[in-house]
């Protein structure tokens, strides 16, 4: 995953039924690609936060944010460049682990500061939370052991607390920094 291809957009949305469908519908209608998506309530019960990792090669980020902002239920949008964000993701994986292979799994989990969350007769379920790149590395290393099932949550992110507030634009009607692209196909008819 090339970092520059992906941007993180977090949207504070009203906690009403159908809001996720509106967001997902917008992405499919406009042909924007979602790399990952995470939704959870916030500390205020009226709102949820949707964290979307978008593929900015499918459309310029400003256009995605601009269209997203038109959804009535979207209250605010924050755009985070990966280098300006603290990102975390969680992985759960059930691995093939005969008793003799277990030591290897446990060693790997311990190096990565993960956890064993379940042990069966021939399988073991592990958990790891961390930055996406760490999760990617872990996934690569456990693959040869034999993955029975694997799930990742998609990432959540907050701005990095550097010196002052991180590079974080709230986008409300501004038209700065339009993406440079040849936007529409010339297909007509």
């Amino acid at each position, binding site marked *: 995953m090339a970092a520059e291809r992906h941007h993180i957009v977090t949207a504070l949305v009203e906690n009403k039924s159908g809001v996720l*469908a509106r967001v997902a519908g917008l992405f499919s209608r406009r042909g924007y690609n979602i790399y990952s998506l995470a939704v959870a309530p916030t500390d205020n019960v009226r709102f949820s936060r949707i964290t979307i990792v978008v593929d900015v090669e499918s459309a310029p980020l400003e*256009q995605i944010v601009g269209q997203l902002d*038109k959804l009535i239920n979207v209250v605010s949008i924050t755009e985070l460049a990966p280098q300006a964000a603290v990102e975390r993701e969680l992985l759960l994986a059930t691995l093939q682990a005969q008793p003799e292979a277990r030591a290897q799994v446990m060693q790997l989990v311990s190096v990565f500061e993960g956890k064993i969350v379940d042990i069966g007769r021939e399988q073991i379920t592990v958990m790891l939370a961390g930055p996406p790149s760490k999760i990617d590395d872990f996934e690569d290393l456990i693959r040869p052991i034999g993955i029975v099932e694997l799930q990742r949550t998609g990432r959540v992110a907050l701005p990095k607390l550097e010196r002052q507030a991180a590079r974080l634009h709230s986008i409300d*009607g501004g038209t700065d920094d339009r993406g440079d692209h040849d936007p529409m196909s*010339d297909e007509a008819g």
Partner: protein
Amino acid sequence: MQLTGAQALIKSLEMQGVEVIFGLPGGAILPVYDPILDSSIRHVLVRHEQGAGHAAEGYAHVTGRPGVAMVTSGPGATNIVTPLADAMMDSIPMVVITGQVATTAIGTDAFQECPITGVTLDITKHNWLVTDAQDLPRVVAEAFYVATTGRPGPVLIDVPKDVSNAQMDWYWPSSIDELDLPGYHPQTKGDPVRVRRAAELVLEARRPVIYAGGGILKARAAEALRVLAERCGIPVVTTLMARGAFPDSHPLCLGMPGMHGNYTAVTAMQRSDLLIALGSRFDDRVTGKVSAFAPDARVIHVDIDPAEIGKVRRPDVGIAGDCKEVIEELIVALDGLGLGTVGSPPAPGSAAAARPDLAPWLAQVRAWQEQFPLAYDRSGEGALKPQFVVETLRDLTPDDTIVASGVGQHQMWASQYWRFDHPYTWVNSGGAGTMGFAVPAAIGAKVGRPDKMVWAIDGDGCFQMTAQELVTASAERIPVKVAILNNAYLGMVRQWQELFYAERYSEVYLSPDLPDYVKWAEAMGCVGLKVESHEEVAPAIEKANAIDDRPVVIDFRTDAFEKVYPMVPAGSSNDDIIVGPTEGEGGR
């Protein structure tokens, strides 16, 4: 005060100042139809729900007020999906109320159940499923607020039957602060720094063109546009959605650009060094091949919808804001740079004083207009020319006549050959291209402006899609007039098959006299007339103009081989505009 949800809904519409609802009742909306009997609101009973939607759009087009349509659940609701999509594309404020099965039955595949909020998610500006009668007044107020502010658009309120029947305590939100719209804050004022920068670009340009779109009309900015154009002496093109936003008879008006725009409008944009896009959205029908569109032009783009700015063409200055406010701010900024009023010189030493002379550009534009006017065979011989019908109709009707059209060749001829000198006199389906739009939209327009003459210019293909609404017009005494340019074909498709598919005509022939349009009109309570020659055109129109107690339909039998020119073939550069038929061209 205790009311039922249904009573509260109707009372809320009254509070919003609604004067007419276009609708058709059914099971799930039944409770809401009862209080209509006691309401001051007029209800126009359509014959098909699509007619209700287009009538509401026509009403909104000419009045600027939101059109209201009400239908039942399931098929009633799905029948109004096309008007919603149409209104979404053309930014028409419309409020559609649909009945829904009871909340207890939702999700059970109940009789006439359809998840219409899901179906219309992407073709409404917003929609609501009301699950508590107590929410109804607030949701109605929110719906009207959302439909009419910012970039206008259609909204839908889905009301389950048990919600209509439930009791609620009446209230009315006294201000927008009482609405539950934490994420909706339309911005209307332009950024002053950008406005100032735009003014500088205007004064630097040698070949500027104002590219006026439908946003001018939505923002009620026609007068502001006229002042801007006259003060700066800049020519104006009016897109299909903006016909009438700037008077066609104004010396600075270049008319319609785009695929079937006139040569001067298209070419002036291509050659311009500054496009001032006001409430227009660089639609593919205007730009042609985007990468070849107005290649030397800097762009100022003003739009109420920030997402439109940079969507297709990256502007040099993008200003998100209401067209009227921004144009007025731009004029103030130009004043600040020393621009004089019309006829007076700029302030000495100001930026305006250093402005390039636009005379060579305007002379070039004039030369194009003289060299490449809209043209057709005006000899009056042979088959009746549709353009002649449009021109005669234009000349024999008051100049503030409202014209509604369907979609296809007749629409382009109407837009090209009518002279639109007043805003809000052109009602058409631009973005969606909805055939069958004309008749119901004309009805809605006539309801909204009963003082004005309303003509639908329709095609024979379009007319057959929604003609049944003339029964509505007869029954409700809405005296619209319909000119069918009957060329016995799905003419625009036929034109493309002729030009681009080697005259292989596939499924485009309709027949000139099946149906018999005169008999059909008479059966629907209208006066029906038939015109077959150039000489009969004016007398028939005068006869129709004299009838004001019922609708009139004139079946004009026009030349089936006539094509719409100029034309920029789809996907081509606007430089490749075809002005007219070439020698030995196929078909004729």
